[in-house]
């Protein structure tokens, strides 16, 4: 089998997001990602889970968030899935890191939230969202580190 796969399911409670985040981090380290890359992938998974809980489930517990991690020969692929109202259609396309101006006069113009998807897009090689049959999945993909020849 070319793929290795593990599925995590958590209840929609923010306290549970680190359980998957830390697990993904360790698996990334085992796959030879650097410490910073593993941290960044953990960050993306936590952001996606937080989005699911906050936006699909309105921050309420009692629902499920499923994360499927797949190692292919070339990539790590993470599907973060929820069941409920889908994300606004062009939200992913519009997500970009804003460039704040560096003085305190403009603090009010700096958004408190809304950075999650932009962070994910900045870190991962590809980000795709799909909604089918009531299930919504955000698919994140990152190329595996190139192994050095010995």
């Amino acid at each position, binding site marked *: 089998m070319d793929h290795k796969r593990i599925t995590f399911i958590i209840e929609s409670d923010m306290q549970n997001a680190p359980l998957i985040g830390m697990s993904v981090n360790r698996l990334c380290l085992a796959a030879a990602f650097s410490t*910073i890359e593993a*941290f960044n992938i953990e960050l993306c998974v*936590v952001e996606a889970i937080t989005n699911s809980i906050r936006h699909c489930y309105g921050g309420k517990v009692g629902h499920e968030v499923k994360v499927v991690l797949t190692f292919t020969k070339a990539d790590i692929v993470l599907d973060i899935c929820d069941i409920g109202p889908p994300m606004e259609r062009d939200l992913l396309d519009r997500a970009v*890191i804003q460039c704040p101006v560096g003085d*305190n006069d403009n*603090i009010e113009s*700096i958004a408190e939230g*809304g950075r999650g998807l932009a*962070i994910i897009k900045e870190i991962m090689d590809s980000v795709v969202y799909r909604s089918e049959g009531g299930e919504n999945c955000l698919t994140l993909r990152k190329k595996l580190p190139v192994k050095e020849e010995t």
Partner: protein
Amino acid sequence: MEIRQETINHVAVLSLEGRLDASSARDIKEKVSSLSRENRINLVIDMAGVDFIDSSGLGSLVSSLRTVNKLGGDIKISALQDQVRAVFELTRLHRIFGIYDDSTAAAMRF
């Protein structure tokens, strides 16, 4: 998230321990709001003990900065771990917060 408070150079220093994420973001906002009601509006947030931050954690710092900024205060950040510093830089928020190597250096800048 644990928050420990001390005073350096008459500045309140909040030392955070743990993950600053969606489940702990409210803690820091509430702590800063509480201090601002006592007119303690120049603060250092020492993040030596923070090994993870996400956009919710960053949002709580932006919100806290707004709170004290309205009253004429400021927040300086100290002792970021490398990965956490990288998230500040990725989101360009290192341009908004004064970032220092340690809390004493940060407190002395007020």
